[in-house]
């Protein structure tokens, strides 16, 4: 420890209460930064988790062609008038006939973690006199489960039963209530082509999304193909999961080179989710930085008071031969010490707050406690910001101290 640091140490330790206040303000700022960001990250995680229980990162389907070819070429000479009445963009094919080929192609890509085929159609479900429309999904049970953990939301029955019996159907809880059925009852399904088939309810599913649970019905994809008289490899949607949902857009661009069908990443269809998680991040950073800056003002204030209080001593030190740099070092050392000690305490305190949040009961949807995320990055950034802010807050008063004119002070 050199002479300047020793002087700084004496200054700090001789004003214990002020030191404590300064350290606490830094600790508070840093711990709030950590708590806010951990909480927001937790909320964002749970949001995406909920989102992806029903939605794949990338969806491939047969869309209406985006560019409509004109039926007649636009006439070149201005004396000809072109009139086409009631032109329509007609979809000549529906669904994807060779979904298995696409699936195999996609599975070769390294970023892909899973692919599942679905056959989705709207149907009527009838139980005696009560009837309602439902969206029927023919699913590949194993792949579907791998992508969406569907079995976790099945509250009665077993998803693998769908493969074992071709007349099995799993209904959303809301849907089952609407038409008044339970597990074991039979219902009849009518397609838009007026084909009817009787199914037996072998299970109920509740995903937490009430709207979806009121219309959702699951059968196996083979049964669905039969019902709609489609070929063996037919599907309406190819659902793809990637190893990182944030990269879905990039991967979807890659996939669209492999196929002519429409490839849509989840961000394209859900701009509101992307924007709300971005807004939460911005809010968390803004609030926590504000707290840190306020803590910085606290330090600035305390260091300023210290400099004013010690102005005579600064003058004496200068008279004895200490130069401006020494004075800056003495006072900057004090604020750096406050920043480092406050920072370390803040990290521990922040972690404790996050753990407390983590154990606060919060029973909504699938949550039992408040969602938080433990990320090392937050801790490093909080510490870094804290130290930088104390450095700036300490530098200004130190520079003022270094400019003290000893003659003015000592002559009184």
């Amino acid at each position, binding site marked *: 420890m050199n002479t300047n640091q020793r002087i700084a140490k004496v200054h700090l330790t001789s004003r214990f209460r002020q030191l404590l206040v300064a350290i606490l303000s830094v600790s508070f700022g840093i711990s709030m930064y950590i708590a806010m960001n951990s909480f927001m990250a937790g909320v964002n995680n749970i949001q995406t988790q909920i989102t992806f229980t029903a939605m794949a990162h990338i969806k491939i389907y047969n869309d209406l062609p985006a560019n409509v070819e004109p039926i007649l070429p636009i006439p070149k000479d201005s004396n000809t008038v072109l009139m086409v009445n009631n032109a329509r963009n007609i979809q000549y094919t529906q669904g994807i006939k060779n979904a298995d080929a696409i699936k195999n192609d996609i599975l070769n890509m390294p970023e892909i973690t899973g692919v599942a085929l679905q056959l989705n159609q709207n149907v009527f479900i009838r139980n005696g006199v009560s009837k309602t429309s439902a969206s029927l999904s023919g699913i590949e049970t194993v792949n579907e489960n791998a992508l969406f953990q569907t079995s976790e939301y099945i509250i009665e029955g077993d998803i693998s039963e769908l493969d074992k019996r071709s007349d099995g159907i799993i209904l959303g809880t809301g849907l089952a209530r609407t038409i008044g059925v339970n597990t074991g009852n039979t219902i009849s399904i009518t397609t838009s082509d007026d084909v009817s088939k009787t199914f037996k309810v072998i299970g109920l599913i509740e995903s937490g999304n009430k709207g979806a649970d009121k219309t959702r019905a699951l059968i196996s994809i083979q049964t669905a193909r039969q019902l709609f008289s489609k070929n063996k490899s037919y599907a309406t949607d190819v659902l793809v999961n990637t190893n990182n949902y944030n990269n879905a857009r990039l991967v979807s661009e890659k996939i669209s080179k492999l196929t002519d069908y429409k490839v849509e990443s989840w961000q394209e269809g859900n701009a509101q989710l992307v924007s709300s998680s971005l807004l939460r991040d911005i809010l968390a950073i803004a609030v926590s930085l504000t707290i840190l800056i306020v803590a910085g003002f606290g330090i600035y204030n305390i260091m300023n008071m210290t400099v004013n209080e010690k102005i005579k001593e600064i003058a*004496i030190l200068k008279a004895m*031969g200490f130069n401006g740099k020494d004075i800056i070092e003495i006072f900057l050392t004090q604020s750096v010490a406050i920043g480092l000690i406050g920072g370390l305490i803040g990290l521990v305190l922040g972690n404790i707050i996050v753990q407390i949040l983590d154990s606060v009961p919060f029973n909504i949807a699938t949550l039992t406690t408040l969602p938080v995320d433990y990320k090392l990055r937050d801790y490093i950034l909080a510490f870094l910001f804290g130290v930088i802010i104390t450095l700036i807050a300490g530098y200004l008063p130190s520079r003022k101290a270094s400019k003290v004119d000893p003659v003015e002070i*000592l002559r009184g």
Partner: protein
Amino acid sequence: MKAISIKNLNKYFHDPVEFQVLKDISFDVNKGEFVSIIGKSGSGKSTLLYLLSTMDTKYDGNIIINDTRVTGLKQNQLAKFRNEQIGFVFQFHFLLPEFTVLDNVMLPALKLKKKSKDEIEAEAIELLYLLGLKGQEHKKASKISGGQQQRVAISRALINSPSIIMGDEPTGNLDSKNTQIVFDVFRELAKERGQTIIAVTHDDEFAANCDRIIELSDGKLISQ
């Protein structure tokens, strides 16, 4: 051998109104001389001392100390120069109250870094003993009496063995007994160590016992 040589020193105060404090002052001080500067209040004697101490740099003229022209040097160079060459004793002791007596004495030497910490400590203790402060070393500077504090301040001024010791009314706050002690210390330093001593004083008896008296009146040198 000249310790201090000043030529045509002029100093103005600009606030609140333009006022010439020192008017064309020139004199020399030899090595080992014990000089006192006297004059009425407002005659400019303290101002002159602060110019000599190199702390105040806003003046016209030339100051040469130990063959170094200090006029025109940068603040940091002057700080280093003061640290090595000049010891300063103020009217009020101006010790650092949160440090021990020993630390107060050691600080200028620790800054100079010419000797190891142990050597500095030994020297500081020796100086404190010389000034009759045995047993006070580890007390806080704010916890000893006024006379003792002034002697600590003198020890601090002496720790780097400066060639020049300056005092701004070093005995102004002391009773006659303590004044005598301080005077004797100065006398002895000048005589035995050959250190030059310049003290501003109001005390006629103090001044009368010096080697030489420089008298100022209204910013002019009237006798030396």
